[in-house]
C-alpha cells in the first residue's frame, strides 16, 4: 500500500510541476473548445496512471457503470425501477470501495472474533477511490433527485477523473459542476486567481506542512519523550494536517480555476471555530456536506425527534471516521466527534456562547485530542499519547530533544499558528484598501509568488518524496 502511495504524482513534485503541468496546460489551451474535455480527460488518465496504471481500468469501469446507471435512473426516474437502479448503482460503487479499502479490516476483525485465520487479501488501495466513489454516488443520486443524466461519457469521466481533485478532493458535487463541464470561461483574471491559489497551497504544503511533518516524525522516532514533546507533537500534528490537506485543496481549487472551473471551498479557517459544530462547518466542507446531503438527511436528519437525530448523528460520524481509514482508531475518532456534537446540541452550545475565549480553547483542545486518535497507529498508541499530554506515567516534563525541536521549529510553528487564522488575509485586505498600499501590493504580489515558486522548487530539488496525508483515504 505504501509503495502505491509513493508512486503517486504529487502536485508538489518535480515530475508534476516541471513535466506534466506545462504539457497539460499547453495542450489544454491550444485545444479547440470541443476538444478541451477530451484533452483534460486524457491528461487526467495519465496523471492517475502515473501512480497506478492498473487501477485506471477500475476507475474506467466505475465511470462506465455510473454512466449506464445514470441513464437508466433518468429513464425510469418516476418509476420504482428508477429507485432500484439508484440503489444498485450506489451498492456497486460502495462494493468497490468496501472490497479495495476495507476487505482486510473486516477479515482481521472476523478472525479476531471467531478465532479463525482466514488469509488476508493485502489489496493495494487504489488512489483516490474514497473520493471518486463519493463523487460517483453524488452523480447517480443527483440524477435520481432530478439532475439531468450525462449523455456524454467523456463529460462524466471528466467529472470523476479530473486530475486537480481526483486523488484528494475536494469532493465535487455533480449538481454543482455539471454546467461547468459543458461550458466554462477562460481568462487571464481567472488564470491569475488560480495561479495565486495554487502557489499559496503549494507553500502551505511544502514550506509548512512538510516541516511540521518532520517534527511529528522526530517525536514518533524519539525514545526520549516528555510532556513538552507530547504537546509539541499534538500542536504540530494539528497544524500539519491542516496545512497538508488545506494546501492540497488550495492547489486543486487553483488548478481548477486555471482550467476554468470553480470548485467548492473545502476549508474556512477551522481552527478559529467556537464549537465542534462550527469546526465541522469549516473543516473538510465537501465531505461534511456530502454526508449531510447523502446520508444524514436521507436517514431523517433532525426531523424525527432528538432520539432519532442522535442515532443519525452516531451513524454519520461513525461512517465519516470509517471513510478516513480502515482501522478502529478512525471509527473511534468519528464517534468521539459524534459525542461532542450531541453534547453541544443538548446543552453545551449554549454554555459555550457565554465565553468567546473558553469556547475556542474547548474546541481546539478536543480537536487536538481527536487528531491524536486520528494519527495513532492503534488505539493503544492513541491512549498513550493522550496520557503523555498530562504527564501520566513516568514521563519527565521536558527533555533535551523536545527543547531542541521547540527551538528548531519555533518559527515554523509560529507561522503555522498565525497561518490558521485569517490575520494574514485581513492584513492584506487592510493594505490593499489604502491607495499606496494597493500599489505596493500590485508590485509585491507577483514578486512574492515568483519567489515562493523558486524557494519551493529548491525544497523539492533538495528534499525527498512527501506524500500527502489524504492519499491514503
Amino acid at each position, binding site marked *: 500500500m505504501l*509503495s*502505491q502511495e*509513493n*508512486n503517486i*504524482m504529487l502536485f508538489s*513534485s*518535480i*515530475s508534476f*510541476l*516541471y*513535466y506534466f*503541468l*506545462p*504539457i497539460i*496546460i*499547453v495542450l489544454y489551451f491550444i485545444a479547440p473548445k470541443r476538444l478541451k474535455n477530451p484533452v483534460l480527460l486524457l491528461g487526467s488518465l495519465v496523471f492517475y*496512471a*502515473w*501512480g*497506478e*496504471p*492498473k487501477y485506471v481500468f477500475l476507475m474506467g469501469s466505475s465511470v462506465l457503470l455510473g454512466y449506464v446507471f445514470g441513464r437508466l435512473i433518468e429513464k425510469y426516474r418516476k418509476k420504482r425501477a428508477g429507485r432500484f437502479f439508484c440503489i444498485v448503482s450506489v451498492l456497486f460503487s460502495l462494493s468497490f470501495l468496501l472490497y479495495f479499502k476495507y476487505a482486510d479490516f473486516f477479515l482481521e476483525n472476523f478472525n479476531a472474533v471467531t478465532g479463525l485465520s482466514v488469509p488476508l487479501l493485502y489489496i493495494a488501495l487504489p488512489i483516490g477511490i474514497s473520493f471518486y466513489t463519493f463523487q460517483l454516488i453524488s452523480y447517480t443520486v443527483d440524477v435520481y433527485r432530478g439532475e439531468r443524466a450525462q449523455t456524454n461519457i467523456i463529460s462524466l469521466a471528466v467529472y470523476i477523473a479530473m486530475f486537480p481533485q481526483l486523488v484528494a478532493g475536494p469532493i465535487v458535487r455533480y449538481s454543482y459542476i455539471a454546467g461547468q463541464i459543458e461550458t466554462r470561461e477562460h481568462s*487571464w*483574471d481567472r*488564470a*491569475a*486567481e488560480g*495561479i*495565486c491559489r495554487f502557489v499559496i497551497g503549494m507553500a502551505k504544503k511544502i*514550506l509548512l506542512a512538510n*516541516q511540521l511533518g518532520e517534527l511529528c516524525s522526530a517525536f514518533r522516532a*524519539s*525514545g*526520549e519523550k516528555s510532556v513538552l514533546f507530547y504537546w509539541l507533537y499534538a500542536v504540530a500534528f494539528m497544524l500539519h494536517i491542516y496545512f497538508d490537506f488545506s494546501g492540497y485543496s488550495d492547489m486543486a481549487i487553483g488548478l481548477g480555476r486555471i482550467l476554468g472551473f470553480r470548485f467548492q471551498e473545502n476549508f474556512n479557517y477551522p481552527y478559529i471555530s467556537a464549537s465542534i459544530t462550527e469546526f465541522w462547518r469549516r473543516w473538510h466542507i465537501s465531505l461534511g456536506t456530502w454526508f449531510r446531503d447523502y446520508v444524514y438527511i436521507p436517514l431523517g436528519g433532525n426531523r424525527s425527534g432528538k432520539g432519532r437525530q442522535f442515532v443519525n448523528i452516531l451513524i454519520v460520524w461513525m461512517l465519516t471516521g470509517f471513510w478516513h481509514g480502515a482501522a478502529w482508531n478512525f471509527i473511534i475518532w468519528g464517534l468521539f466527534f459524534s459525542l461532542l456534537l450531541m453534547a453541544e446540541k443538548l446543552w453545551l452550545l449554549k454554555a459555550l456562547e457565554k465565553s468567546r475565549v473558553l469556547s475556542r480553547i474547548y474546541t481546539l483542545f478536543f480537536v487536538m485530542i481527536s487528531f491524536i486518535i486520528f494519527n495513532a497507529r492503534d488505539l493503544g498508541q492513541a491512549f498513550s499519547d493522550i496520557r503523555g499530554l498530562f504527564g501520566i506515567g513516568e514521563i519527565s516534563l521536558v527533555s*533535551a*530533544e523536545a527543547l*531542541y525541536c521547540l*527551538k*528548531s*521549529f*519555533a*518559527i*515554523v510553528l509560529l507561522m503555522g499558528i498565525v497561518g490558521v487564522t485569517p490575520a494574514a488575509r485581513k492584513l492584506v485586505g487592510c493594505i490593499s484598501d489604502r491607495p499606496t498600499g*494597493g500599489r505596493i501590493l*500590485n508590485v509585491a*504580489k*507577483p514578486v512574492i*509568488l*515568483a519567489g515562493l*515558486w*523558486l*524557494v519551493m*522548487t*529548491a*525544497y*523539492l*530539488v*533538495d*528534499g525527498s*518524496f512527501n506524500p500527502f496525508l489524504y492519499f491514503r483515504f
Partner: protein
Amino acid sequence: MQKRKENMVVCILFILLLYGGFLLCLLMPGPRYLDSERRVPAPAPKLTADAVWSGRFMEEFESYGMDAFPFREFFRRMKALTAGGIFQRQDNNGIYVADGFISAMEYPFHEESLDRAAERFRYIYDKYLTDENRVFLSVIPDKNCFLAGISGRLSMDYEEFEEQMAAKADFAEYIRISDLLERDDYYRTDTHWRQERIIDVAERLAQSMGITLSGNYEIHEVEQDFYGVYYGQAALPLEPDRIWYLTGGAIDNCRVYDWQNGRTIPVYDMESAKGRDPYEMFLSGSLSLITIENPNASTDKSLVIFRDSFGSIIAPLLIDGYSRITLADIRYIHPDLLGKFVDFEACDVLFLYSTLVLNHSDTIK
C-alpha cells in the same frame, strides 16, 4: 484596469517560470556526477511497457527529475539558506554549522546497532582469534561530540556509548582516545580526523598495545582545496579545508598492497588528492583489505586492524611498531573470507571504529 494588468503580470511570470523550467529540464543535460554529494545521479529511466506497467518508470523518473534538475546546486543552496535564515531551523537534513565547522547531528544512540556491531566483532574473535592474540578496541567519537554541546544541538551520551561498547565487546581491551580529541582535530567540512593532529592518539594506541613509535614526522600540505563530504550535504557557502599529511619514520619505506584489486599502492595517493574525494589519498580510500609492510621493522609483530575510513589516516602512523599491518574493512568483505588472506596467528588485533559506523552498523557484514 490596474487589477487586470497585475493579473497579466502574474500569468506571464508563471508561464515564464513553468515553461522556462520545463525547457531547461528537457534541454539541459543532467550532471554525470554530483560532486557535492559524491554520487552518480539517478539515470533517466527507460520507457518500456513493463517499466510503466509495474510503476518502476514513474518511481525512477522522480529521482531522475530531482537529480538532473537544472542548477541543482543553486537550488539546494537556496533551500539551505531559507531553512537556516528564514525558518531558523537548527539543522538542515541533520547537518548543521557551528563555529565554521559542519557536522552531522549524530543522534540518537542506537543501542541495537551497538549490539549488532559487538556481535559481529565477537564472531571474528570466535572464528579467528585465540588467547595468543592480544585484542584491543577503540571508539573514535564523531565531530558532533565536540560541537553539539557548545552549539545547542542534540548529541548522544558519548561516554555511555563508549562504556557500553567496551562492555559488549569484553573480549577486547578497551583503549580510550576520546579524551585526546577535540573539535580542531577534525576537518571543518568533512567527517574525518586530521592526520597531523592525531599523533597523540597514535601514541596512546601504540603505548596500550606495547609498541613504540618514532614520532619523527614531516608535515606536508596538499595544494588542492578539500571540500569534505559535509560541505556537499550542507549546501552552504563555506571555505574549503586543506589536507596535511605526515611522512618520516617507517612510513617512507613501507609497501602497501591492495588485495581487492591485486596491486601495490602508495601510502599517500597524490592522484586521488586531486580527485573528487581528496581524502581518498590516504591508503587509496575505501578498500576492503590492504596490507602495509615495514621492511625495516625491528620486530616480526603484526597487527590486524578492523576499521572504517578513519583507520586509513592513523594506520601509517602505527607501522613503526610492526612488521605488517593488515587493514580489513568488513563493510566491504565478509569476515568468512578473511582467513584466506590474513594470518591471525599471534598477531595483535585492533577494532578501531568511529561512532558514525557503530551507531549505524547495518553495513557491517
